[in-house]
């Protein structure tokens, strides 16, 4: 029982992490119609910057602030130098250019910080575990990740559904040329959306750094998962991304911990031990294929497309 609760919390934690990354991806994709494969390396960069600023300042809070600002600055720099010239281009051109940036940055962090995994200590205040129920302890930092992810989700919800900027973003996701024709500076809107997305990815990297090893290529796997999330959720939909992220996070975590036990109900232990992990790894992709089979544009496609 307590194992189930722990795994559900772990699943939530993975879910909110995926949401932080997928939110930026789906916004950039939805509003700018731009496939940014480099979104994953921006998450990696966030983690590396946090480590760097922590070593420099010795303070977790300062590291968070500086790393966020640096991630934002770097994202805007990339937007200015490369991405801006690609918005009008074919999706495939965007894929190849952003793939080039992945290659460059993965190697660059190896060059600057070395190939060996780095680690970031958990902030003093949030280290250790907490007793949730009798006999059930859980690391505080993971709860902090869940809480901050939910807070960001709430903030995004308010931003997107209650502010003028959010209105423009929603309008942009529906029909960007029309928004531009109505006199909105679409370039500026793109830059704001892009910067915001980058910062969210960086934030995810910073938050996860204390419990993962910070290493080159850490963004690649999470990038694919984030794409799975936005496709299941419906491209351009924040709400879809949120629901899909939690779904994927829970399915993946629970699948990995319980697939063998579930399979043992219907097959012999030894094949179950072989088949279980395979099914667990495939589970989210199976889910994506199923969702797309029945809803070819995801669960919550933005209206008017």
């Amino acid at each position, binding site marked *: 029982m307590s194992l189930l609760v722990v795994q559900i919390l772990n699943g939530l934690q993975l879910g909110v992490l995926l949401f932080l990354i997928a939110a930026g991806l789906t916004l950039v994709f939805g509003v700018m119609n731009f496939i940014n494969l480099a979104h994953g390396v921006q998450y990696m960069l966030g983690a590396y910057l946090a480590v760097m600023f922590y070593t420099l300042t010795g303070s977790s809070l300062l590291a968070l602030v500086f790393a966020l600002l640096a991630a934002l600055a770097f994202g805007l720099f990339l937007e200015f130098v490369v991405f801006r010239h690609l918005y009008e281009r074919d999706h495939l051109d965007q894929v190849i250019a952003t793939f080039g*940036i992945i290659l460059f940055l993965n190697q660059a962090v190896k060059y600057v910080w070395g190939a060996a995994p780095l680690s970031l200590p958990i902030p003093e205040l949030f280290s250790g575990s907490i007793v949730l129920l009798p006999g059930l302890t859980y690391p505080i930092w993971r709860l902090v990740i869940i809480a901050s992810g939910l807070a960001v989700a709430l903030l995004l919800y308010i931003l997107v559904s209650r502010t003028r900027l959010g209105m423009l973003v929603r309008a942009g996701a529906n029909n960007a040329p029309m928004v531009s024709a109505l006199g909105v500076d679409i370039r500026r809107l793109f830059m704001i959306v892009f910067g915001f997305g980058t910062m969210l990815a960086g934030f995810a990297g910073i938050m996860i750094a204390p419990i993962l090893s910070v290493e080159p290529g850490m963004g690649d796997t999470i990038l694919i998962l984030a794409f799975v999330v936005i496709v299941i959720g419906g491209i351009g939909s924040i709400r879809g991304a949120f629901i899909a992220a939690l779904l994927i996070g829970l399915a993946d975590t629970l699948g990995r911990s319980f697939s063998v036990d579930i399979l043992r109900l219907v097959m012999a232990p030894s094949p179950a031990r072989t*088949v279980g992990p395979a099914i667990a790894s495939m589970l989210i*992709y199976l889910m994506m294929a199923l969702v797309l089979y029945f809803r070819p544009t995801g669960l919550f496609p933005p209206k008017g497309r």
Partner: protein
Amino acid sequence: MSRLPIAIFLGFALLPMAAAFGAETYLLDLFMRVMIFAIAALGLDLLVGFGALVSFGHAAFIGIGAYAVAILASHGINEAWISLPVALVAATAFAYLTGTICLRTRGVYFIMITLAFGQMAFFLASSLAPYGGDDGLTMHARSTLFGLSPFKHERLFYYIVLACLVGCYCLCRALVVSRFGRVFRGARENATRMATLGFDIYRYQLAAYAISGALGGLAGFLLANATDFVSPAYMSWQRSGELIIMIILGGLGTLHGAIIGTLVYSLLGEWLSGLTENWKMIFGPLLVLVVLLARSGLLGLAAQVAAWWRKQHAEPQA
């Protein structure tokens, strides 16, 4: 055939002569691998360049072909007349079955659902514990042909691969100009119009997807024999991404562009990695530059340069 593809194939055919002067094994091995990936890239160009169907799980076809050979070999079946058809049928069947589902979606969703099936194949291979799992499977003997072993002889194997490449090129070329190809290309331009004309474009696209899978299976068969080894890494999404990049780099929808792209991508990577350990820091920005400067790959860039050159030299007379 126009001149450029003939020149490419001639270059491949003459390479072993030049290679005989030094580093023969290395060069044959390198170019053989280029040609093998070019076969898969041709199949991908058929989909992407002529049908706007961006398959992001193409490495799975190669991997399935390769695993079919290696698994049969591990059971002592080395005869190519058995393993080659099995590899082709397995890859084609996988393409056909996943294609029936994938082709329900369009655009980016198609990219992602093909990725999903590619990833499933990857994780399936990783979990094949009896056949090496994550670590992959070593082939202790290469395929034989009627008891002979042509794949052991480096040069002979090289020319077999070249023959396969030329054969696949001619097949694809014939396909795209055929009635089938015209319908398939028409569906890229305007699916609704083709449907109104009475064509069931789904069937055409599915057939093209299956053919493309078969080419991937052939590449897998050759790759397994060339490397004596198969592993799940053959099916990783990075591999699929590389294949897409190769064909875009060369120039989409030309077929020989796919071969040129594969050649340039592989050789550039090989050359740069010999220069410096951090070669990807040069390679990455190069890719970005190619996209920013060349609108349709290297072939497009060459055409632009040629047009500029002609203009420069035509003006004095005018």
